[in-house]
């Protein structure tokens, strides 16, 4: 049984009357790369800040490396790397200043050569002040500062937001470098499904403050299915197919989003419902995510007009 490095129990947060996070239960084992995905304002930053003890929960609790989030000791914080939303750093400091500052907090862990390599690889000017760097460069510095102490647990809040494709790739390379080492765990939020697909082995989907999925990436990919069926007449009113999340109806067609339904069962149901034809629509991870988090009555914004 692998050790749990990140766990939450009914973690809830209200901002005044607004529910930002609704009873989140998570158990992330050591060595896991977990992609935390959700649409904008789904509750990702709230959840991460709660885990790091920067916010207080309205209810529930969280633990990092076995320590309660509201009382993270300095020794525990030393083992956790954190990349904040927007990569906020002290604007007046140069990269060299920041290195000295950060290094002081990791007297035994700091990997000088790794930091130097990253700065060189990113082609960052060591003596330039943070305020004179672009967003992308700031993100690179942020990543280097978080990785150089070789943290056991790396928590990143939307680390690639607003970054171009090349820098996003560098971020992923840095992540891969880290996870190659034994026992490192990464928990990162993102809305770039391609990145999540590359590096994660686990996916947690959050929508409007509620955890909608928490499983291995494979399971998610295999479970979320879209089936299109057409009928000679009105589609059946009763949809007693197992795993139905929601459906979209039109005059003679039906579109079903199913979770975890066997291809065989789909075929059987299509036959029993007398569908003229049916097909299991191919979806990539982004499609699956969109369908999984779309509201049931979601209509397409633009409709082609029939001539």
């Amino acid at each position: 049984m692998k050790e749990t490095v990140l766990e939450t129990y009914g973690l809830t947060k209200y901002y005044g009357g607004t529910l930002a996070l609704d009873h989140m239960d998570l158990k992330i084992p050591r060595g896991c790369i977990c992609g935390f995905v959700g649409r904008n304002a789904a509750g990702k930053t709230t959840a991460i800040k709660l885990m790091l003890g920067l916010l207080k929960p309205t209810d529930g609790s969280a633990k990092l490396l076995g320590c309660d989030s509201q009382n993270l000791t300095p020794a525990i914080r030393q083992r956790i790397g954190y990349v904040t939303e927007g990569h906020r750093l002290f604007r007046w400091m140069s990269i060299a200043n920041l290195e000295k500052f950060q290094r002081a907090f990791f007297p035994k862990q700091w990997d000088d050569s790794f930091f130097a390599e990253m700065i060189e690889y990113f082609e960052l000017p060591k003596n330039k002040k943070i305020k004179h760097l672009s967003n992308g460069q700031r993100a690179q510095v942020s990543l280097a500062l978080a990785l150089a102490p070789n943290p056991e647990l790396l928590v990143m809040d939307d680390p690639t937001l607003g970054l171009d494709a090349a820098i996003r790739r560098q971020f992923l390379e840095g992540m891969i470098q880290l996870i190659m080492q034994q026992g490192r765990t990464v928990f990162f939020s993102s809305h770039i499904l391609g990145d999540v697909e590359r590096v994660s082995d686990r996916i947690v989907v959050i929508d409007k403050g509620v955890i909608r999925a928490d499983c291995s990436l494979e399971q998610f990919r295999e479970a979320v299915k879209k089936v299109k069926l057409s009928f000679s007449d009105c589609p059946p009113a009763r949809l007693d197919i197992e795993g139905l999340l929601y459906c979209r109806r039109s005059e003679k067609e039906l579109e079903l989003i199913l979770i975890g339904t066997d291809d065989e069962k789909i075929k059987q149901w299509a036959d029993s419902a007398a569908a003229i034809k049916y097909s299991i629509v191919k979806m990539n991870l982004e499609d699956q995510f969109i369908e999984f988090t779309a509201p049931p009555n979601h209509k397409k914004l633009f409709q082609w007009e029939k001539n």
Partner: protein
Amino acid sequence: MALWIQILPGLDKPIYAQIVAQISENVAKGELSPGDKLPAVRKLAAELVINPNTVARAYNVLEQAGLVTTKTGSGTFISDPKLRTTDAADINMLAERMDTIITRGINLGLKSGDLVVMFKKRLEKFANRQKSGKKKK
């Protein structure tokens, strides 16, 4: 022997499946021969910028299909064709793929005779490639 693997996230085909498909193709084309060593899991993962577990999974699937064998400590190697096993599911998948090709051919206006000729020609090409691949060794 250079093994060039490309993956694209964001396809409907999972990344591990893409790796499996490409390695399988390489074996079939003779670009990978029995005894050839596949790149180490970590090396390939770093190169492709993907999770090492994904590469490991691909290698597992290939091993279960009998295409490769893993020797702990040494690595993963292409296995002897004589030792490979196929099961009904594999044959089924093959049959389905053949159906796809036949459908396309018929839609393009080809007759079954034409299709058979085409098929034979492609088989010959593969056989030639395998021969030349063996010559290089």
